[in-house]
């Protein structure tokens, strides 16, 4: 009956597997309708995605996705919807790139400063939404979405040549970071994996520890499961809202770091956007669990990278976008189905296990202690 109970793990896997299979089946149908053989499409995607250099690409993509999903998951565990990870990480990466380019420090310190700036900016940007919720009752869904737009505008402003950016090869970008701020990569046969992926994994470990082992994590999860019960147990929900938004935003601030420190070394117009929304899908698929989210991030990276082969096969690569959409939709449905089934199954099991010993062990008619 421990947490490693095979039944538990099985039940946890049922929903994502169901969702994935549904997505494959439905996108096969779409492919067939469009006149393509699904097997060809999936086989070429698989072959392409398992080539060493593409596997490196997948890992590099998933490093940022993982962080983004964790940022979203922190909110989810408390019933807070931080839709603003996208704005938070872009603003954070922008500010970090500007600060990082303005100074020169010994390697580790330089990196630490850049990361710190990113975390603080991300946290502050998300913290605004937290404060608005606590003090003004503004739904964090609305405020984080609005803050995305404001963040986008601020980034665009900062990225004009007159402000912090410069024009280079027809691309506007911030000045390049000094090489002391380049995060050393891990060399493999397929190329270089971002060294920052180790930090991503450590954040995942920290997430697991914080939520599962600390009092703060307990309070956070309790608030997510039942706010009135958490309040009655002494949790200060307002403080928890602000704290978890800061935390979520802090992690969101890291999302751009693998790319900034590992590849681009500057923030430009071509800096990837939309990773914050991808994080929502990945957190849903990975069920806010640090390991599940890890697998989901890699799956997403795989789909993103391997779809590039489809155009060469004459198959529209948008089929993968359809697939990703179906996965998200199906996983939400599947989790709810599985959740209800699990509650019922457990109630039945408990009732069955008690059915036997209950009768003899309940001398409830004896007026023990009365009078």
């Amino acid at each position: 009956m421990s947490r490693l109970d095979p039944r538990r793990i099985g039940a946890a896997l049922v929903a994502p597997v169901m969702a994935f299979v549904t997505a494959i089946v439905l996108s096969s149908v779409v492919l067939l309708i469009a006149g393509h053989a699904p097997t060809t499409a999936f086989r070429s995607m698989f072959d392409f995605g398992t080539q060493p250099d593409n596997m490196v690409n997948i890992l590099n993509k998933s490093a940022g996705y993982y962080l983004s999903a964790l940022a979203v998951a922190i909110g989810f565990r408390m019933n807070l919807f931080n839709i603003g990870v996208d704005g938070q990480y872009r603003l954070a990466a922008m500010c970090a790139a500007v600060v990082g380019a303005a100074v020169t420090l010994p390697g580790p310190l330089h990196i630490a400063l850049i990361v710190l700036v990113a975390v603080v900016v991300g946290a502050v940007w998300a913290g605004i939404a937290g404060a608005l919720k606590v003090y003004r009752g503004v739904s964090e869904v609305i405020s984080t979405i609005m803050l995305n737009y404001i963040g986008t505008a601020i980034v665009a402003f900062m990225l004009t040549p007159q402000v912090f950016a410069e024009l280079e090869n027809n691309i506007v970008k911030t000045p390049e970071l000094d090489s002391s701020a380049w995060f050393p990569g891990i060399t493999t046969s397929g190329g270089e994996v971002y060294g920052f992926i180790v930090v991503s994994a450590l954040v995942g470990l920290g997430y697991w520890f914080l939520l599962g082992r600390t009092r703060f994590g307990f309070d956070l999860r309790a608030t997510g499961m039942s706010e009135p019960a958490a309040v009655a147990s002494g949790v200060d929900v307002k403080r928890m809202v602000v704290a978890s938004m800061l935390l979520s935003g802090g992690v969101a601030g890291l999302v751009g770091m693998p790319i900034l420190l590992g590849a681009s070394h500057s923030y430009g117009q071509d800096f990837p956007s939309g990773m914050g929304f991808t994080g929502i899908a990945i957190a849903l698929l990975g069920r806010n669990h640090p390991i599940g989210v890890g697998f989901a991030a890699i799956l997403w990276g795989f789909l993103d990278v391997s779809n590039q082969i489809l155009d060469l096969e004459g198959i529209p690569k948008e089929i993968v976008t359809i697939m990703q959409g179906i996965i998200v939709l199906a996983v939400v449905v599947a989790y709810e189905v599985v959740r209800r089934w699990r509650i019922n199954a457990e109630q039945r099991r408990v009732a069955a296990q008690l059915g036997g010993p209950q009768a003899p062990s309940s001398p409830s008619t004896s007026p023990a202690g009365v009078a």
Partner: protein
Amino acid sequence: MTAAQPPEASASEAAGTRPPAVRLQGITKRFPGVVANYDVDLSVEPGTVHALCGENGAGKSTLMKIIYGMQKPDEGTIEVEGKHVTFHSPSDAIAVGIGMVHQHFKLADNFTVLENVVLGSEPGGPFRLDVEAARRRITEISDRYGLDVDPDPLVQHLGVGDRQRVEILKALYRGARILILDEPTAVLVPQEVDELFAALEELKAEGLTVLFISHKLDEVLRVADRITVIRRGTTVRTVTPAEVSSRQLAELMVGSELPSPQTTESTVTDRPVLTVENLTVRDEDGRALVDDVSFTIHAGEVLGIAGVEGNGQAELVDAIMGIRKAEGRVVLDGDDVSHVSTRHRREAGVAFIPEDRIRQGLLLEAPLWENVVLGHQTSVPNSRAGLIDRRKARAGTSQVVKDYDVRTPSIDVTASALSGGNQQKLIVGREMSGNPRLLLAAHPTRGVDVGAQAAIWDHLRRARAEGLAVLLISADLDELIGLSDSLRVILRGRLVAEADPATVTPEDLGAAMTGAGARTEGAA
């Protein structure tokens, strides 16, 4: 109460003309872990007010849901006006003329009375609401049954009693001939109760049948022609008000022994643990829900608060816990904690058995051991230096499960897998496990079986002997009288009377609770 009814014994034969309005035979309904109803037989004569009474958790609500088609029985048959029926949903029940007025009204505040009444069965075509036809029907029904309902005001401007009559009208509008009223008086003030009862007489006179669910004996005796007592899921007996006293009825409800939770000798000391001064809690509109309440509880003392539910008890407890904002002072062991957080109050030794265990007491989707940590997150066996000590927390949970006889196969099952009574035992055990100085107990034995009830009382008595101060809120007057060292009566947020549990009777207390009784009883 009323004269015109045929006597009990020969009721069905004597009339001979009309079959029972509702007749249940051998109804059994199981839920995971509990049998909510077992072999229930019930026969409701047409044109009568038939009361169904029993303790909280006795299975009244489930039975009503079965009659109204919200639950399907596992066994047994339902007949309505002599015809065998099977309900798949409430609309099937409505179709054969059954209507229900829920305890919590299901009205849209921003709609007018008329709009609420017709909602879902609008007269006129698919694109047109025939307001005039609706108004005519509503006025006609209102006049015929003396409901005095005005179709035009917005529901949000109506008082509770008016809303209830709108609900009744809504059911009648849909052609109900059999009305189920679920705890209709729980939310009413005494005058409104009188009005409701007058309306019920009117309905009866027009030939309608009313099934009235309540656990308030005085009301049941006042209004019902027949009373069926339900205990632990099954119907015990059907009686007429003339042949029983409220004492006898109470004994039927709780079982023959009427477990007297007598506290033998007083353990009250002169050390005040909790002093509440001029405590006032207001709702958003500034109305006082708890109005200028003051009292002191000493170590080893149980102070019982008697009152009809919804008279400010929940708000009073929330305010003392620091969950709700309040004016006035709360002093715990000499320290003013009026402005201190709930967590600090808990750390100072305040334990809390909430009225609504599902909402305030449990994390349904969390395992039992996490539920036992809840409320003790910051104290030593469960956590140290900000970390949860899972091993010790689990050991503590095993102890609670053992001491409080929580029936569960493991401490890793989720709280939702337990039956209501076992959930309650877990909560009581959890709250007592931190050696509290003050316990705020709202309905501590609600929904548990008689044996567990006696065990919980024992635990409370033992803790009291060791100096625990208890604020006890209960709907069970015998529990209140038996456990308390002193009693107060709360009515519309004010403490209106004091009583000495040694001399007061449930009848006197019941009268005081409704504001009908004398000011005080016994000691003051």
